[in-house]
């Protein structure tokens, strides 16, 4: 179905009206463009101490000298960096008065994902009652956390309350000069989450941005810092399965994980940002730098389910610095219509007896392009390093593409590296078998895709896994037959 320009224009116009972006909201937005004054102003707005302002300025100076990278296997129109407003206060005013005003398509998706009505309101930006269940839940949770000495707050709060921790660890895993988008983020990051687990503490619940009810709307340059002190454990959830319509086109987040000796961090992401419409117009650019460092006997495990964004460009990585440390990466990336994803991981083996596992499942449908790009590097001192990588791609339809770019660099003879990749499609016989048992084709495909992704879905926390499974079904709807 081809859109005429007229129709598209109309649609875009109505869309803007429909959601009322920027209208009728008391905005506290900076003028467009980026220079040192803007960086200073952001820092001032956040009431940051002098060292933080300097740190931001230094990042900005580094960023100015850098060039936008072009090596990824994606095509897009580069964002105009001087045409973005770098600060917009979270709007407190709800977008809608009741659920009836919300896009019915969105509501339908909520319903199918099984999200409770109150949460639906919250997610869609509808005004909610103060005594909403999850708020009280959140408060109880916060109390429990505080009892154990766990710090879980926004980045801005952490800079004010715990400057010594932030100062010590920020930029220690992803330095300012790491890459173009990390430098940009370091200069202008709006807010984000900060988490510190003290020595030997096992965090009693899944930490999630979901429950930080009052801190929503952290903006497009999110900065997350998770520190697990010696012998501690934390499981952190980011994002949610509900489709989120975001007005910011460019997202450049930085996530840093620090697992000290014997600590373990489990970081799970579900990302379902607006992928653009069926013709590939609009959609979010998701350029994220995620990296964790493992000290002795530590373990970092990344799990991600990527179904949204027009362009996803991210490589959650592990630096296995300490001896006996473990890195894991489990990923499902689904692309449909005109989506493009270039995602994977880096496992840098520095310590002895380090182990890493990579399981990546790519599913492409429609006219999308899905790439796996990974690096397994074993340095000469990393004796007995062990890696197992598996990346499987599933193609649906003949207009999509699946690409694999694994890099394996080994400088130690005791290393054992295995890598395997396959590309296949859903077999006609498999579908036929399901049909024969009375399962219609759409259901059959969902069943097969879930089987294909099972190894990764299993790694997600229970309640997330159920939603993620449904999300996969919805993302691939209408891509076959």
């Amino acid at each position, binding site marked *: 179905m081809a859109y005429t320009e007229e129709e598209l224009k109309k649609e875009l116009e109505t869309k803007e009206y429909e959601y009322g972006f920027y209208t009728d909201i008391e905005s506290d937005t900076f003028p467009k463009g980026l220079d040192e004054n803007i960086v200073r102003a952001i820092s001032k707005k956040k009431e940051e101490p002098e060292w933080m302002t300097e740190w931001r300025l230094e990042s900005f100076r580094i960023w100015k000298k850098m060039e936008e990278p072009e*090596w990824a296997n994606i095509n897009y129109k580069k964002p105009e960096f001087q045409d973005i407003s770098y600060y917009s206060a979270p709007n407190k005013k709800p977008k809608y008065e009741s659920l009836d005003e919300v896009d019915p398509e969105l509501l339908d998706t909520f319903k199918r994902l099984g999200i409770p009505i109150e949460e639906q309101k919250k997610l869609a930006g509808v005004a909610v009652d103060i005594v909403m269940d999850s708020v009280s839940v959140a408060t109880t949770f916060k109390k429990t956390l505080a009892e154990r000495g766990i710090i879980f707050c926004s980045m801005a709060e952490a800079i004010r309350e715990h400057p010594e921790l932030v100062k010590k660890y920020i930029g220690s895993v992803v330095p300012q000069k790491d890459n173009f988008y990390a430098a940009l983020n370091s200069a202008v990051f709006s807010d984000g989450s900060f988490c510190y687990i003290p020595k030997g503490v096992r965090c009693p619940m899944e930490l999630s941005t979901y429950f930080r009810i009052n801190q929503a709307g952290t903006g497009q340059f999110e900065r997350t810092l998770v520190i697990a002190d010696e012998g501690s454990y934390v499981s952190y959830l980011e994002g949610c399965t509900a489709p989120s319509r975001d007005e910011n086109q460019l997202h450049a987040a930085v996530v840093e994980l620090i697992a000290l000796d014997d600590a373990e961090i489990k970081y799970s992401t579900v990302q379902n940002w607006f992928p653009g419409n069926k013709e590939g117009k609009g959609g979010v650019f998701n350029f994220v730098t995620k990296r964790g460092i493992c000290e002795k006997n530590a373990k970092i495990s990344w799990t991600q389910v990527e179904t949204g964004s027009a362009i996803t460009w991210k490589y959650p990585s592990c630096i296995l610095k300490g001896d006996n440390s473990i890195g894991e990466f489990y990923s499902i990336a689904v692309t449909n219509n005109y989506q493009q994803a270039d995602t994977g991981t880096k496992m840098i083996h520095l310590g002895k007896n380090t182990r890493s596992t990579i399981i990546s499942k790519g599913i492409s449908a429609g006219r999308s392009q899905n790439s796996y790009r990974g690096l397994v590097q074993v340095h*000469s001192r990393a004796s007995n390093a062990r890696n197992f990588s598996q990346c499987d*791609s599933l*193609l*649906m*339809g*003949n*207009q*999509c*593409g*699946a*690409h*694999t*770019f*694994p*890099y*394996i*660099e*080994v*400088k*130690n*003879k*005791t*290393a*054992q*590296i*295995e*890598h*395997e*990749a*396959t*590309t*296949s*499609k859903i077999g006609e016989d498999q579908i036929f078998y399901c049909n024969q048992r009375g399962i219609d084709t759409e259901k059959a495909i969902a069943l097969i895709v879930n089987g294909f992704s099972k190894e990764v879905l299993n790694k997600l926390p229970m309640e997330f896994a159920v939603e993620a499974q449904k999300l996969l079904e919805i993302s691939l709807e209408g891509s076959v037959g």
Partner: protein
Amino acid sequence: MDLKEKLVSSFLAFENTIDVDHPVHDIRSEAIKTFEDKGFPGRKEEAWKYTSLKQLQKTNFSIFPKEAEALEYRDVKKYFLHEIDTYKIVFIDGIYSSYLSETTHDGVDICLLSAALTKPMYKPVVDVYFNKSAAKDDSLTSLNTAFSKEGAYIYIPKHKAPIKPVEILHFSSGSESAIMLQPRNLIIVEENAELQVIERHQSLTENEVLTNSVTEIFAGANAIIDYYKVQNDMPGASLIDNTYIDQKGKSHVSVHTFAFGGKLTRNNLNFYQNGEYVDSTLKGVTILDEKQHVDHHTLVHHRQPNSESHQDYKGIFNDRATGVFNGKIIVDEIAQKTNAFQQNNNVLISDRATVNSKPQLEIFADDVKCSHGCTIGQLDREALFYLQTRGIPEKEAAALLMYAFANNVLESVRIPELKKRINKLIAGKLEVRLGFDL
């Protein structure tokens, strides 16, 4: 003056030695422009990430060798597959040696590219094939095209097969302290025809040699080609080998690369499948020690449905050797029912050896079976122990296991004498004597 400037400026001198009115001259002029624009590839380029040509560019290579001294057959006999009768096309320092060669025009043409490029009777064929499958935008291939003058020319017409294999040998005599050679081969095998080729580059002294070779191979429908590359050169010799293979329907082409030595070896092996039911086989054994560097860069481009490709590369790396494998499979949207397999296994036997492997898949068709596997590991301790309990010394036991490891690749060598020869080379490389042939 660096090597690039030297090459570009000597192109003018080169033009004096050739016929500038010849149609091929336009191709040459075009190519030198491409090279001038692009220069030597640097490590910032993705395809050259793991192989640096920097060192080579600093060497003062002589580009136009003087007339080489004649070599005695008995001195170089060991480099020929002398156990069997073969056609031979031999070059010494890039210049054809009629004394050592054995060519033919009896039904098939096995002769020289210089003849094919200048004699009118070959013009119809040269017009159709010369520089048609070689990449126009690749700087090193363009450099070779610009200076293309001499090399092997093989033309096998429909339904023919030469009675014996063809050997192509490039000797460098060491008469210059450093020499750069740019041989160019053109091989055309028409419908239902067959050909076996053994190619070898051999330096006879420790002097530096840089060979930038381009081979174009065209396989017609149902054609069968076996191509063997033996690379066991002196420590001063570097080789950049660019091979382009164009396959028509139902043709079978296999290329075996045995990389056992040389200072730096880069094999750019490109297969383009332009027909249905095509079979491409790429196999390689790499055994390196000291500071040797071998980079296998393969491309299989599936452009038509129902075809297959098989890649199997094994590597054993000792001392400070570096091995690179970069295999790329592209399956076009139309190439449904493609089966593409790629395997790369490596064994590191020294702490200072390095392996960089990058098996790559780019797939645009949905009804395909594609897989790649890559492993890096070491010899199985238990297997080693078992052999030792049976009275086999550790060194021999390790060699036996490595033999077994490389044997998959050798299995498909169809010239028995060549297989024996390769086995001997492997044994020599592993410094063992086994009382049997595998």
